[in-house]
């Protein structure tokens, strides 16, 4: 088991290094960083001097090394457009994004899992069919449309909830949270629902189809034949066995979560990383783009690592090393 964990960790590290290199290339070679930092009037000589002083004429390996060291020290460069250190921008924006993602995911799990179990068990009830139809609608509604429609209904027509911003925010050490104020919650509801919709649909369908398969298995039949109650079978035996495929697919969809969080933040002008990124793309602000790439990769790799650990927790077959060894022999 320890070998499994270490292996996964090293793989994660390898991915991060590759992405860091891609980010590095972006930073230093796409467009000309010098052009972006000095005005038009600077002479050739001045530019060369600048290149030298910034170390841009050193061999690539040296530059890359410096890049990594800077990263680890928390220096992500200076935004072209906003003329501020990217690290500071990240510090301001990251909590907003993380809170949004967190709230929407909790909401999606609370809604998606029971619905998925229900439609998996009672596949022929009319309520199941209704829920499935609604989920089809959910898949067909692009996230930005959902956001806009929610704004239209709740902000424009009913005037109940704000259509942009985070509301009042409280600062705790390095983290600014909107979850401790009423206006903060009011502001987060609509974006969270928007972001959670595709997750609910995904989780619901996943769990449903996994339940349908699990309910056909011999061990469920045997559990019934032993006289265990339906509740124990559905939520004990069946649900636990759906977790492995569900965790897998959720792991695969982390990228989608990131993408849609960008969209949601844009629709609601939510001051998070995604919104920052979109603005950066518009201005070709490479430092922000490259840093965002790194962060997303980190998030991605980190979550996948958590997923791998979760496998160990859920499926005992992965835990014992000698089982893996037996598998190789057989």
């Amino acid at each position, binding site marked *: 088991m320890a070998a499994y964990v270490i292996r996964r960790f090293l793989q994660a590290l390898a991915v991060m290094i590759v992405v860091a290199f891609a980010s590095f290339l972006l930073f230093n070679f796409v467009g000309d960083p010098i052009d972006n930092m000095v005005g038009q009037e600077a002479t050739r000589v001045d530019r060369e001097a600048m290149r030298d002083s910034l170390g841009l004429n050193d061999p690539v390996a040296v530059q890359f090394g410096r890049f990594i060291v800077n990263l680890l020290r928390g220096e992500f460069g200076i935004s072209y457009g906003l003329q501020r250190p990217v690290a500071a921008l990240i510090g301001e924006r990251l909590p907003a994004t993380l809170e949004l993602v967190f709230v929407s995911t909790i909401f999606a799990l609370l809604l998606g899992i029971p619905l998925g179990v229900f439609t998996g068990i009672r596949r022929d009830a009319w309520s199941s069919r209704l829920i499935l139809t609604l989920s*089809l*609608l959910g898949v067909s509604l*692009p996230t930005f*449309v959902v956001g*806009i429609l929610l704004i239209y209904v709740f902000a424009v027509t009913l005037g109940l909830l704000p259509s942009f911003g985070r509301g009042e925010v409280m600062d705790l050490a390095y983290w600014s949270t909107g979850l401790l104020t009423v206006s903060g919650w009011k502001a987060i509801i609509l974006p969270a629902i928007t972001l959670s919709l595709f997750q609910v649909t995904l989780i619901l369908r996943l769990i449903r189809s996994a339940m349908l398969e699990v309910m056909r298995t011999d061990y469920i039949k045997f559990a019934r034949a032993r006289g265990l109650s339906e509740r124990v079978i559905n939520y004990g035996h069946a649900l636990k066995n759906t977790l492995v495929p569900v965790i897998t697919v959720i792991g695969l969809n982390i990228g989608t979560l990131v993408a849609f969080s*960008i*969209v949601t933040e844009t629709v609601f002008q939510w001051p998070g990383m995604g919104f920052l990124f979109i603005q950066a*793309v518009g201005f070709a602000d490479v430092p922000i783009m490259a840093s965002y790439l790194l962060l997303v990769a980190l998030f991605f790799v980190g979550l996948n690592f958590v997923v791998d650990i979760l496998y160990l927790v859920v499926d005992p077959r992965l835990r014992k090393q000698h089982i893996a060894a037996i598998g190789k022999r057989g």
Partner: protein
Amino acid sequence: MKWLQRQANPYRWTGDWSQLLDGDLAYSFGRSPATVVAAGVTLIFFIAAVFAPWVAPHDPFDIATLDLNDAFLPPVWQGETGSWTYPLGTDGQGRDVLSTIVYATRISLTVGVLAVLLAAVLGGGLGLLAGYVGGWFDALVMRLADIQLTIPAILAALMIDGIARLVLPAGDQDVLAIYVLILAIGISEWPGYARVIRGVVMAESGKDYVSAARVIGIHPVSIMLRHILPNVMGPMLVLASIGLALAIIAEATLSFLGVGVPPTTPSLGTLIRVGDDFLFSGEWWILLFPAFALVALVLAVNVLGDWMRDALDPKLR
């Protein structure tokens, strides 16, 4: 040899297809009203897209016909200024909303269909090679597929767009934008097709007729195609329909974000972006009708895809 074979049984292909039509597929299609409606809606959209100049009551891009006095007119059933000339109202420049929707559908569907085609050809080709050659190439392709699956189209397109903006001269950007878009979306969908074709190729290459073909001197792949294609049609169609829905959504999202199609050739996503500006000022029709059109189109395609998947899945029969 192949020519002779086909002569001997000229109905070989029709035999397969008519079997398909007579069987469970047609049966379940007729039984489900939702699917029939969905098919109809999809057809309407496609026709509108292809025959846009004839279907749309106005040409929204002909500046000569635009009259700013006609701007911001509400739909026909609202207010005294609504009229049948502009059944769904007009936008800020006096363009007929219905016509813009028709032309925008053309763009949305073009990008979507081309992206799916690219994905199918790319994925199918890679899958065919991977299944046939096997070995390290197969492992490589599968690994690439795994990596590709984790990167959603939207993220990839965003990065590509950002870089393109930097690297390409300003003038070319608009022209290339659509191709970049199709490329980004198409590439994000190839793994599905690759897996399907690879699986069937691998299953078939072990069979005796392949070795027999080699002995006779015919290239096994040409013989395999006859056996592979019928097996592959079903799953590919399902992938294509669901993929089309995803591609349309991806393009709409990117256009909404401002990094999709250029504003000169607006898609449904662009229209929604434009309409968003008028959300608070009361001209709701500029936003809601394009949004409704987008949802209707995607929903119809999804329903068709869902039905196809259920009808073709042997496990669910």
